């Protein structure tokens, strides 16, 4: 098919793309972060945020201001924007948005199940759930004893249903199994999302596929890192790796055999993109692997805005906004705990 997205894209999605680009232009700049880092109290932080696009979002909060209130209000704001985009979208952009919410849904389901294991009440955990991943059947998740139960009873009519193919088993859900379930669900989700983007073709595939490949490889590295010293066997570990990234298949096989950080680093050295990332770990900034991955993610998300007429801008915007929220919460925590040595460890976006 002719690659002529420029001719048809704006008919259905032009308004939303224009809107999301406007929202992206109002992300905080380096100057804003410098000003925020100079604040002495959370009240100062609130006053500075009033001069940005955030405006009076904390206006109706009674004293005292806490970091968690700021975090909740920011999330609510992002949610409102996201739901506005989704409510005004047409197919296939609507399916794209549904795919975006699936990752948050998976996190919420796992959070609720862990809470049920620890005998906490549903209401307590609902507060911690991510608002983008809310769905009606969510609260009934703690009735299920096994993954097949979970699927058959609760999740069969939600968008998460197709991801359960590899996860059906009769093992009762204890802590280890819940983590395995999370990783298997996420793997199926990433592969389905990748297939959707690739089938859509056009600029969306060109922009989204590298982003999702990086996400898959990052998952593989983090799973390997977290499994050092646990009872997870190497074969089990290999089944959890998403297969859509650059590391597949040789890299994943080598990673499954790795037993410590240096062996993992040697695997990464084979790949031109990941070698500099691993070399930046440690150093004088004390960066962890996750920090390095966040930085790389910010870079590729910003690049997504260099092309027009594709859905990747929406995905990139939500991820960049989340990074901005993480930055603000980091600075706010440093201020409120008066521990300002590492206050500049945020990741600037623009």
């Amino acid at each position: 098919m002719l690659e002529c997205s420029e001719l048809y894209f704006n008919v259905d999605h032009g308004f939303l793309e224009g809107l999301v680009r406007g929202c992206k232009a109002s992300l905080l700049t380096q100057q804003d972060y410098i000003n925020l880092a100079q604040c002495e109290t959370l009240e100062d932080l609130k006053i500075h945020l009033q001069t940005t696009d955030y405006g009076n979002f904390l206006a109706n909060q009674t004293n005292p201001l806490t970091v968690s209130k700021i975090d909740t209000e920011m999330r609510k704001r992002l949610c409102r924007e996201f739901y506005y985009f989704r409510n005004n979208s047409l197919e296939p952009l609507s399916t794209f948005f549904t795919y975006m919410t699936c990752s948050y849904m998976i996190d919420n389901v796992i959070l609720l199940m862990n809470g049920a294991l620890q005998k906490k009440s549903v209401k307590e955990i609902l507060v911690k759930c991510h608002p983008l991943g809310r769905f009606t059947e969510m609260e009934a998740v703690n009735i299920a004893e096994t993954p097949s139960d979970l699927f058959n009873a609760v999740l069969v009519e939600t968008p998460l249903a197709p991801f359960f193919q590899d996860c059906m088993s009769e093992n009762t859900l204890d802590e280890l199994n819940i983590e395995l379930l999370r990783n298997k669900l996420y793997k199926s989700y990433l592969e389905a999302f990748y297939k959707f983007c690739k089938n859509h073709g056009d600029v969306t595939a060109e922009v989204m596929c590298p982003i999702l490949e990086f996400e898959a490889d990052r998952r593989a590295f983090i799973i390997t890192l977290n499994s050092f010293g646990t009872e997870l066997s190497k074969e089990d570990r290999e089944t959890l790796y998403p297969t859509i990234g650059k590391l597949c298949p040789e890299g994943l096989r080598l990673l499954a055999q790795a037993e410590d950080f240096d062996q993992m680093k040697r695997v990464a050295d084979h790949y031109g993109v990941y070698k500099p990332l691993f070399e930046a770990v440690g150093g004088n900034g004390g960066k962890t692997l996750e920090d390095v991955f966040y930085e790389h993610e910010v870079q590729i998300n910003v690049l997504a805005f260099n092309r027009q007429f594709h859905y990747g801008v929406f995905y990139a915007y939500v991820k960049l906004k989340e990074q901005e929220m993480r930055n603000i919460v980091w600075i706010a925590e440093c201020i409120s705990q008066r521990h300002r040595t590492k206050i500049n460890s945020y990741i600037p976006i623009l």
Partner: protein
Amino acid sequence: MGSLFRSETMCLAQLFLQSGTAYECLSALGERGLVQFRDLNQNVSSFQRKFVGEVKRCEELERILVYLVQEINRADIPLPEGETSPPAPPLKQVLEMQEQLQKLEVELREVTKNKEKLRKNLLELIEYTHMLRVTKTFVKRNVEFEPTYEEFPPLENDSLLDYSCMQRLGAKLGFVSGLIHQGKVEAFEKMLWRVCKGYTIVTYAELDESLEDPETGEVIKWYVFLISFWGEQIGHKVKKICDCYHCHVYPYPHTAEEREEIQEGLNTRIQDLYTVLHKTEDYLRQVLCKAAESVYTRVVQVKKMKAIYHMLNMCSIDVTNKCLIAEVWCPEADLHELRRALEEGSVSCLAPQPGIKKRE
């Protein structure tokens, strides 16, 4: 002829304001609307400026006023808007106004909280009466069919002990009854069927009148449902599903006498609640009416006060002469008007006159 298309000749003037009279002078200037201030503190961030504390105080007052206006509008009390807009309040009155508003806010919040609690209670009791009335018709049908379920073969992998318990059906039969949103009924029924694998019987009927939802306050249609189940585990699961769909569950009476007793008790309680609720609502209305008289003036006054402090933040401070220096753009034709405004401002504070230095 060309002068028709030219704008007014402007000049840049420098004002020296004594710190004591600065507020009044700016208030007089603001009422006339003559000048535009230049920001002399551009490299200072907004939270490091001199009058930040006063701006915060104004914002706190604004927050209280927004809450008041919200409550007044919710109670459908007309808000009178004055014809003339009042000037910014002199500094002596500000503290008094702040205390008044804070006291009013605390009182209002308490009374509203009590009223909400009473209202919620009342709605729950009304829902309970409806539920009792409607489920009375369900029970008659169920009682006829009960004997046939004794032959129902147990599909659960329960131990032999439970099998014998199943025979004494009457003892293990449980009921859960309550109300649910109209929109959620289908999903609720489907999930019940999937989870309990047919061990429950669900009957429901629509309620004719729409009731208010105690949490959101909107008036919606409700369905009364009655679930009969047997097995304790099924009972737990049913309760969890009811929680998930935010149903209002009420205890189900097992005998007709119990039901009548409960209904009578509910009726008396409802009557009492109505009287108490009326009294609370009257008192709340009184408080709000009194507040509504002065709310409009206060809102305008606080806005003007905040604007004055924003302008004061733009002036630079001269520590040696203890005065504020402001740079303003002013039309040349209005310079004497500007002088008069400054005199007025400083006269109201009985202080020496400020100086104006003209600069092009």
